[in-house]
């Protein structure tokens, strides 16, 4: 039986501070990048995220588990976006987290305004690149050392600005492999 999971669900948590236009643009970019249907649909509320009382940040790993459970049947992957700062234990912070080869990923816009007041376009580019980055992890792609590849792990916003919103040729092959594997398995 062919699975119904064929859609990439983009799930804003509360108001991620992007505005309707940017969200719409993000959805378009994701659709173009993966060649899959997208759907903008909130799955959890901001009050469902419980910031750690001492760190005042949200531990992202349990959020991913919740997203996986709440994802609708047609969702192949789910990308959540929040304006809250994320962390995983023993690390000071993370920009986002993804289930490698799994269903869910999350992106925080909290640190995307680092630097000297980024312009609207710079901010948009950062969101798009890191959203593609996190979603690609769910397609089993790991970090890439090519500084221009979207899968490059960036240590600063300057590095995010420098990288492109495309995959390098290696990562492109690996994504194609994963898409073929999913197609063989009945999804997408």
């Amino acid at each position, binding site marked *: 039986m062919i699975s119904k999971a064929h859609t990439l669900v983009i799930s804003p948590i509360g108001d991620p501070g992007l505005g309707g236009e940017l969200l719409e643009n993000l959805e378009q970019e994701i659709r173009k990048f993966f060649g899959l249907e997208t759907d903008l649909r909130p799955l959890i509320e901001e009050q469902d995220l419980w910031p750690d009382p001492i760190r005042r940040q949200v531990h992202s790993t349990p959020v991913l588990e919740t997203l996986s459970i709440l994802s609708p049947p047609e969702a192949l992957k789910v990308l959540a976006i929040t304006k809250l700062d994320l962390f*995983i234990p023993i690390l000071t912070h*993370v920009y986002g987290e993804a*289930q490698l080869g799994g269903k869910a990923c999350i992106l925080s816009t909290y640190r995307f305004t680092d630097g000297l007041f980024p312009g609207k376009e710079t901010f948009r580019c950062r969101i798009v690149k890191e959203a593609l980055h996190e979603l690609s992890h769910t397609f089993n792609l790991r970090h890439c050392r090519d500084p221009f590849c979207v899968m490059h792990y960036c240590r600063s916003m300057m590095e995010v600005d420098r990288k492109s919103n495309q995959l390098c040729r290696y990562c492109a092959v690996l994504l194609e492999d994963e898409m073929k594997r999913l197609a063989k398995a009945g999804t997408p």
Partner: protein
Amino acid sequence: MSGAKILVVDDELIVRKSLGGWLERDGHKVDTASSGEEALEKCGNTRYDILLLDIKMEGLSGLDVLKKVKENDPDVSVVMITAYGSIPSAIEAMKSGAYEYLLKPFDPDELMVLIEKIMHHQAERRETQFLREQYKERTRFESMIGQSRALQSVFDLIERIAPTDSTVLIKGETGTGKGLAARAIHTKSRRSQGPFVVVNCGAFPEHLLESELFGYQKGAFTDAKTTKKGRLELAHGGTLLLDEIGEISMRMQIDLLRVLEDHIFYRVGGTQPIEGDFRIIAATNRDLERAIKEGSFREDLYYRLNVISFSMPPLRDHKEDIPLLAEYFLHRFAQETNKPVDQISRAALDEMMLYDWPGNVREFANAMERAVVVGQGRKILPQDLPIFRPEYVSGPKGRTLREVEIEHLGSILKETGWNVSRSADILGIDRSTLYDKMKRYALRKPV
């Protein structure tokens, strides 16, 4: 070689899960342990490059684990994870051989830079070890020796395939002489006047392997002060042996596939295509078909490499060559060490024939070298051989090879205090092979 093999040891599930996931996304292979005891058990079965070890745990502390791990395998790099209050213990850990300590919570960049640094150091160490081995191989195994049917059929095959320009895949256990077979193919081919270039794919981290193979343009990266030719370019007109092909990363597999398809490549940072004229021979001791099933090796690359393939037989399958090999190595080492040894006793030869030689010809050569060095008279006696056990002088009657091997491995491990590196050296096999055998036979250090 892609990411590192990392063991995260922490008694908090959430730390293991989150940190493990983060490291996996960074391309590393991650395993976790919830206690010091579990970590030691895992280290007994698997070889890790890096241990991320929490200092404070119930039961065995991180410090205890560090000491035991370093005792067994000094090459493993251990990073201690500590809270602010435990800094004195972290300093003590550094004195006991920890590579570094991280104060939690730490910046993800800090962890990433540290792991890169460790991988770089480990790669340098492996490369040095490889060059030493290569030097030894050159002086020891100038030619392949054997009259057995198993080896003769390999020689026949080499004669037949050498004149073709087809890609060859040589399989076989460690120490069986895959490199020698590749060199023989080159020597007998029309490329024999050209270079024979060897790359040990397992010895380099991904980015170093890329610049080793493809070379780089001046300015391609910070250290690229001048343009450097890669080994593909250096092999022009000759043969390129890609040893340990099973160890290369997915990225390198994609690059190699392109090279095999059209023999065109680019230097790192270069835009000009370079066309090379070389024959590729690949060698591996890994089961590549299994690696394909596990998703760590590309099927399309495998078929490109596997145009012609053959396996080098393990020494236990051509024991009839042992007397000939023994004679060859006896004279060779007697000459090298300037010792008047020129005979092998019947009993010593019997010992050699009874033993299984898990490290194959390489182990055999090491045993002969040791026998020549430690021997007192003109004749090699059983007690001069590292494999000799008095109770077997008349042969391990009624015992299977497996039983004999288990016992021998166990006794060498015991002799070295379960130091895997030293044991592997004595046995003439590499550490990963020894780890595999320890796992297979459930050989563990008594707690």
